């Protein structure tokens, strides 16, 4: 009859605890077995395909802290270039409780509340100037936030009676934006940055802060940046008050602006 299969009720619980119970503090990637640490990677090395390249790929994975590195694909993609797909196991867990989550501070408010809050704090409409700055011509994201039509069924800032929106459109030089902010006495300046190749956005965003500071306007406005590769942490690092990433809804931004202005007026 052959050997009888042993089955361990001891190990049996490991799986069940997995995704049902609240996560523990130490978190590893999870592919096939809870905590197995499995990560997929792909990259190109400027080395001709062959044993050396393959070993270099394995070594690259080890440098990434991946154990049992498995090179699943070795594709020669040029005389001196090889593309790899690999899988390995990360053994160093992330400690959730140690993570600092950078998030702009606001609560989700509805349109009426936002309008009321702004009117109560400022006694007038809040002036919001928005632009896609530098050479960035991507306006869809900015428009999604500003234009009446909004984004994914959520109305844009123009739909808020207490917000007066000036949408300057695309490829606006920082100088022009600052001049406009002064001209209309902006309460908030909203910048969109979509092109990030070679970190062009970092230079551009830093330059805007410098200009605003030089003009003595920095403290007078709520300064916000948004874009698909923008995080709040990055925004703060660059001297902005808040940063908004992919999937942002206008209401998120309006909620933040109203509360931030209120906070400033109260302080």
């Amino acid at each position, binding site marked *: *009859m*052959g050997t*009888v*299969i*042993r*089955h*361990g*009720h001891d*190990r*049996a*619980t*490991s*799986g*069940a605890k*997995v*995704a*049902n119970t609240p996560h523990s503090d130490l978190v590893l990637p*999870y*592919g*096939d*077995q*809870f905590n197995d640490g*499995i990560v*997929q990677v*792909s990259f190109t090395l400027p080395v001709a395909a062959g044993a050396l390249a393959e070993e270099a790929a394995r070594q690259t994975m080890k440098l990434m802290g991946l154990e049992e590195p*498995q*090179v*699943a*694909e*070795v*594709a020669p993609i040029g005389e001196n270039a090889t593309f790899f*797909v690999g*899988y390995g196991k990360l053994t160093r867990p992330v400690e959730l409780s140690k993570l600092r989550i950078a998030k702009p501070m606001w609560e989700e408010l509805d349109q009426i509340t936002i309008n009321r809050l702004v009117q109560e704090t400022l006694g007038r409409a809040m002036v919001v100037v928005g632009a896609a700055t530098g050479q960035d011509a991507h306006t869809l994201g900015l428009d999604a936030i500003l234009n009446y039509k909004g984004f994914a069924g959520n109305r844009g800032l123009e739909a808020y009676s207490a917000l007066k929106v000036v949408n300057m459109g695309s490829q606006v030089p920082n100088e022009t934006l600052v001049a406009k902010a002064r001209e209309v006495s902006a309460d908030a300046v909203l910048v969109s940055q979509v092109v990030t190749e070679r970190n062009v956005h970092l230079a551009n965003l830093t330059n805007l802060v410098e200009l605003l500071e030089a003009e003595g306007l920095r403290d007078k406005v709520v300064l916000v940046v948004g874009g698909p590769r923008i995080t709040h942490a990055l925004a703060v690092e660059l001297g902005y008050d808040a940063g908004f990433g992919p999937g942002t809804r206008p209401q998120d931004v309006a909620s933040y602006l109203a509360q931030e202005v209120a906070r400033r007026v109260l302080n």
Partner: protein
Amino acid sequence: MLRLSLDAKTVERCHEISENITSRVIDELSSLSTVAIERTVARFAGIEGVTADGVPLANVLVSHLVEKGKIHDGVAIHLANACLALGKTPAGISEMISRGEIDISNLEWQGTEEVTRKAREICKDSLDKIRARRAEREVLLEQLPVTQTPWLYVICATGNIHEDAVQGRLAASQGADVIAVIRSTGQSLLDYVPHGITTEGFGGTYATQANFKLMRDALDEESHKLGRYVRLVNYCSGLCMPEIAYMGAVERLDMMLNDAMYGILFRDINMERTFVDQNFSRMINAYAGIIINTGEDNYLTTVDAFDAGPSVLASQFMNYHFAKKAGLRDEQIGLGHAFEIDPSIEDSLSYELAMALLVRQLFPDCPIKYMPPTVHKKGDIFTSHVLDSNFNLVSVLTGQTIHLVGMLTEAIHTPLIQDRYLSIRAAAYMRQAAKHLGHNLEVKRGGLLEARATSILDDTLKLLERVNEQGLFAAITEGVFAGVKRLRTGGKGREGVFKKSRWYFSPVEEALRAGLSGESLGEGPIQD
């Protein structure tokens, strides 16, 4: 809808010949039973436990009768006789045997009529339970309807049933309609079914009744949450075919892989053993309203898919008739097919489309189990994902029913959580994006697609004629299917086949056949 114009005569001939081939096999083997069938009868009679060493009591009972030279009569009468003689339940009897306390082969005979009645009686609960589980499924399918085809079918193969349950539910919530728990490597060659909950399989999780139950419960919970009935699948190919068929029936599995040809070709299981087992298991499947899946798709991993069309189709014709004879309705016959043509050849997509359409059209009421590309997959998961995308397309275009979702990591490992997610997403996208595309295109008369389909059909007829001449066993011996040759006298599990004595009686077979003849067997609505 895309339709090929095919020669009706050729199709009819293929059916006639296949009917003939399969009838002969069944007739030839009708005098045989197997240890697996007898263990199944024991299980029907309520023998479910294991010894302290983990040996199933069903095995204990059957081994006992084998040892005593009485297995030819079938377990049912000896067991029933013992129950009457000792005033015990079947479970009690089997425990006593396991403790070496009795020999049931030489107890006093309680009279043929009494024993037969008792034999029927001890199996009745199980038969009723299976009908009940079947009714339960029908109710659930009405309450929690599955509205889209193809059904997206994914596997879990973690080796740990608890992981499988978690990941199966996750997959269902991501859109999977069918969850299969793959078996550990090698289980199909075990001549017993492991017992209890298991957590240590390799490349799959052991098929056990407890594991079936655990998964069924998990998926039932998820089904209610999603408002969509999630089907559960396991395998009853291999040496324990009928036993596992029984367990699947009792635990309300919805689909079972069941194919003697698969066992012969890919597991080197003895032909007689597995054909006998197959007929019996398919009767159980039919009775339980379970959809079977056959394994022709596997042929395309060992022979070139471009050339293998006729042998695959011939096997499907035969498998169809084997299934019909076991009482399965067309709606329960999930013939195996696959998208395995070398993707580097010109017009590979057109050839796949032609073949998928052909199979679909030849078995219009059968839910084809359409398998994704596997052999030509390499470690480049991106390219692999694209190949699956074309598979997804062909499946939707040709209106398939059971769609095994291809995994981008097919050449690397059994699916990870995210592999299932990405692959289900891709398949669901295609189901939506190409929903009515097949209805708005037509096959060009006399074009490449039709030429290809016609030539495969013609060659299938020729092949079936040849098989008919020599008989199926001889054909297998010559390596007609999957390029694998097997001897009638070779293979695993042959020692478990025996000739039934003239006293042989199986109350289970009787009950199943009763249903069969009344056309009521395997009846009941299959949704959508």
